[in-house]
Every structure is written in structure tokens, then in C-alpha cells.
């Protein structure tokens, strides 16, 4: 809960967090080492200095640290776990639904557990998805389309098997599809970050919500254009929100574009924890105002009411969270 200077309480849902195991003993190969090093560089590039961790802590910070950083220090009332399996890079996986389920067990009122699927897993993967819903009652999945799997370097949501998985997800009662693009989809001559397949999927599955992680960056321009046309496309702000401290002008420009094209009802705050911590992002975000020139040029504003939607209300709608009831429950505990 974030309390404003006026004493108003803002319910915060961090819609993008991880609990990963990237210790050297879990790394399968050089790719596992390079993957976590790259994440760590993101932390180092944008965090205030006091929030930069040593490498060993970054590789494995554990559930207690996560709880402290998100829910004690970080103003978050709830957080959504977004799994990333990466079983070609990590022996037991990087951040699987099963690993995250332990977190959910420890802090059941705080954690929303999402699952994941990979259409390259064929029929067996469809059964796994069904088991995830049966076991954990998930209503959201996280897809990392650039995950390496043997010779395959990724997939597109327009692939026939991806369509089958989305049909299955819908039939199982899953509502929210979080999509993260990566750099290496085959064929390599195409733009791997292209978000056009999300457009196809959103049109084919109007009852599903597609939350595009990192607001489509590095293709924010194309993402905005798709979101204008597809009412079931949302933007997750992880990465973009981390610019609020070190690069406020770029953050302002991105927010102005998003509010102009996507609108205040379809943007979700996310820290991408453990890359960044919600504490400093939320403090800076709450203190942040869109510069006058951008307000004049775009006609949008980042008012306290808009911030409240982005920090929690929009995610609460997607995940069926009754903010009042949940606040009362958390306070009672």
C-alpha cells in the first residue's frame, strides 16, 4: 500500500515479478551464465546505486528477500509471478511455475501464481497446461516466445500449435496471456521482436487478454499501433518504469505515447523484480509529473487517478481481485 501525502491509500499490484535460481550449480551451459549476466546488467544500468546487488545475490535471492523487498519495503500489496522456464539453459529451470508455487504457498494472499506453456511441447504440453490449471488454479500464463528449445530459437503466436494452445487455455478458463518477445526467433532474417503475431492472436481470441510485456519494447511504436486496434491488448510497464529514476525524460516520452495510444485503462505496473525493486520505482513514479510540453503536445496527463489505475486497479480487473476485500484481508493478517 502506498500512502500519498494527502493520506490516500493506493493498492499496488506488481504485475511482473520473478523468483529465479540462476546459481552456477543450476546453470546448464554458457547460455545460463550469459542470460543472468544480461539481466544483472539491466539492473546495474538503471537502478539507483544502493539497489544494485552483488552477482551472487542476484543469482539467487530467495523468498524471504523477495517478501521484504516487495511487501515490506516496496509498497506492493500483491504481486504476479511470471515464470520463465529456460530449461535449455538451467538444469532445474530458471523460474518455473513449480518453483513459484512454493512462494504462493508461503504467502498465499500476496502472490498471484501464473503458469506458462510452450507450443513446441505438442500434445504433452497441452496436458501439462491442464494439470497446471487443475493443481494451481491459474488464470494467467506467461509466454517467452524467444526461448531456445533444441534447434528451435523461438516461436510465434500465429504458429498453428500456438493457436491450439490458446484455444486450450481459453477452454480451461485462463484469461490473461502475458507475452514477452526476445531476439532470436527463426527464421533469423525476420525481425524477432515483431509484435504482429500478437495482433493476430488478439483478433482470433477476443475473450483473452494479451498483456505485452515491456510494452512491446524495442517495438513500442508497433505495439502502440496494435493496441489502438485491439481492445484486448494491454501493456506491461516493466523495463519502461525503471527509466523513471535515471532517465526521466525518456520515461515521460514513453508514458505520453502509451497514454495517448493505449490509454490509462490498459497499462499495468511491473517492476520485473529481482531486476528492479518496486520501492524506488513507485516512489519516483508517484512523485513524477508529465512535463508541460508533452502534456500540451499529446493532450494526455499522468494524474493521481491515472497512477492509481496503473499501479493496481487495472491488474485487479484482469485478475478478478476485489481491492477493498483484499485490503481488509491483508490488514486482518
Amino acid at each position, binding site marked *: 500500500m502506498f500512502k500519498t501525502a494527502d493520506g490516500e491509500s493506493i493498492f499496488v499490484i506488481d504485475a511482473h515479478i520473478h523468483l529465479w535460481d540462476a546459481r552456477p550449480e543450476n546453470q546448464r551451459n554458457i547460455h545460463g551464465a550469459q542470460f543472468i549476466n*544480461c539481466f544483472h*546488467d539491466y539492473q546495474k544500468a538503471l537502478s539507483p546505486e544502493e539497489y544494485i546487488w552483488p552477482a551472487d545475490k542476484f543469482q539467487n535471492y530467495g523468498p524471504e528477500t523477495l517478501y521484504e523487498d516487495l511487501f515490506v519495503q516496496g509498497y506492493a500489496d500483491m504481486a504476479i509471478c511470471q515464470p520463465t522456464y529456460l530449461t535449455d539453459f538451467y538444469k532445474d529451470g530458471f523460474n518455473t511455475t513449480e518453483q513459484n508455487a512454493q512462494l504462493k504457498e508461503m504467502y498465499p494472499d500476496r502472490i498471484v501464481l501464473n503458469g506458462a506453456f510452450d507450443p513446441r511441447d505438442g500434445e504433452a504440453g497441452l496436458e501439462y497446461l491442464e494439470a497446471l490449471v487443475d493443481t494451481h488454479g491459474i488464470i494467467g500464463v506467461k509466454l517467452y516466445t524467444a526461448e531456445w528449445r533444441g534447434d528451435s530459437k523461438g516461436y510465434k503466436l500465429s504458429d498453428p500449435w500456438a493457436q491450439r494452445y490458446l484455444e486450450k487455455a481459453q477452454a480451461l478458463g485462463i484469461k490473461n496471456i502475458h507475452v514477452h518477445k526476445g*531476439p532470436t526467433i527463426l527464421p533469423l532474417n525476420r525481425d524477432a521482436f515483431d509484435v504482429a503475431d500478437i495482433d493476430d492472436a488478439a483478433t482470433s481470441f477476443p475473450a483473452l487478454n494479451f498483456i505485452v510485456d515491456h510494452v512491446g519494447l524495442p517495438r*513500442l511504436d508497433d505495439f502502440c499501433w496494435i493496441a489502438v486496434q485491439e481492445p484486448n491488448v494491454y501493456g506491461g510497464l516493466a523495463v519502461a518504469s525503471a527509466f523513471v529514476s535515471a532517465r526521466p525524460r525518456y520515461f515521460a516520452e514513453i508514458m505520453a*505515447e502509451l497514454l495517448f495510444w493505449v490509454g490509462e485503462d490498459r497499462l499495468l505496473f511491473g517492476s520485473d523484480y529481482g531486476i528492479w525493486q518496486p520501492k524506488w520505482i513507485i516512489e519516483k513514479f508517484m512523485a513524477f509529473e508529465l512535463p508541460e510540453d508533452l502534456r500540451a503536445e499529446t493532450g494526455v496527463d499522468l494524474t493521481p487517478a491515472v497512477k492509481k489505475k496503473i499501479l493496481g486497479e487495472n491488474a485487479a480487473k484482469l485478475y478478478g481481485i476485489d481491492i477493498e476485500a483484499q485490503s481488509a484481508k491483508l490488514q486482518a493478517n
Partner: protein
Amino acid sequence: MKPPVDNSAEKLQEVWARLAVVCDPELDEPVTDMGFIEAVHLDPDDSVRVHFRLPTFWCAPNFAFLMANDMREAVARLPWVAGVSVTLADHCYAEQINRGVGQGHSFSQTFPDESSADLHDLRARFRQKAFQRRQELLLRHLRDSGYTPQALLRLSLAELGEIALDEPGNRHLRARYLEIRKEFAPDGGPDAPAFVTLQGQPIEAPDFADYMTALRRVRVNAEFNANLCRGLLRVRYEAEPPTQGADATDPPRLSPDLSAAHSDHYSSKT
């Protein structure tokens, strides 16, 4: 007998100048300006070795290939150069890219199993975005200097060239736009409209505000990405020791024009 003149410093300057015309195709920023060139070596037989690195191990291999190939071609155009090798370091496809570019292979020859074509379409798509961003920056500057939309759309190529731009950075904006405009409207004479669409057609006045709004989206995305890449590159390599060896050089200082353009673009926004 006179001792041979050592002009290796000048030659290295020429190599750096050639590398400065190579842009990251995705960001439309010079690879030298982005800090991608780690070192340039000149061997006694006039062979040149270029070493470069990128902000992450995972940067898109197609753009990495294009940059490596463009660097090789740009340096090879210097008449005295006996040979060029370009080496990409610390990248998930470094081995394949270095081998392919070294052997003069195309992208599809380099990645026979992982590609379905060469990179013409990819490059063309990002060249369009580069056109839009360069045009937006110049239009924005002129609009902020008092030009109305009508006046901007009436402006001919000759008139655009005659506008007195006081800051070097703004002259750089114009030069960059005019350079890329030729690719999209190659037949324009001096009376042709200065500002045209991607199709080389005049921009319609009633749509001007919408047109600018669409361009702004492209510009904001590119600038955000370039900034993120600079930040990642900085933290990735800040702990690295400087390249050793008498024949290695640091990048030369940017020319006054470029330095000014750079600070205009970035300092005011960060």
C-alpha cells in the same frame, strides 16, 4: 635513403571516419557513436582489423550481421586498405557471424538452416523508420522555430537547403534527413517538396497533425532503445581494461558538428 613516412595515425583516422558512416540499422545511430567499436588495429601490410561488441550477449543476430558486414565494406572502400577483418565479441552468434562475414558470405549462406532469405526486407523496414525519425526531428525543429504546417508542406528542396540554421546540430538534422530522403524520393529536383511521405508523395495538409503524431511514436521508440543500449553497453564493459597494444586507438573525438548534434539530441532529454 629516406626513412619510410609513418602515416599510420592518419590511416587509422580514415578507418574511424569510414566506420562512423556505418549505422546500427535498428537504431539509426553510428556504430562509433554508440561505442560499439572496441578497437581498430592497423597491421604493417595495411590490413585493418576491427573489433566490436554489443550491449548484450543476445542482441539480434540479424542486425549484428548487418553491422559487421557494413563495417567490412565501408573500410574496404579505402583505396590503400589491403584487407579487412571484422570480429564481433561476446555474442551468442559471434562464431557464425565472424566466419560468415570473414568469408564474404551472405546472411543466408551464414545461417543456411536458420534463415529463409537475406536481410533486404529487414533493412528496408528499419530504413523506413529511420526516415520517419529523421524527418520528425527536422520538422519538429522547424515547427518550433515558427514554421506553420502549411509553410512546411510548401517548402521546396531548394528552400529547405537555404534556411539559415544557426546551430551545427540543426544543420546536422537537415543533412541527415536530406541524405535519407534521396532513398525514398530519388527523382526530386530543387522544386520538389522537401517533406514527403515514405512513398515519396506530398504530405496532405489536413492530416499533418496526425502525420506528426505517427512519426513521433517511431522517434520515441528509437531514442528509448538507443538510450537503453548505451546504458547496457556502459555497464557491460566499464570494468574491462582498455585495449592494450601500440597499434590500438581510441575513437577520435567527434567533429564539432556531430558533437553538437549529439548533445542536442540527448543531453536536453535526459
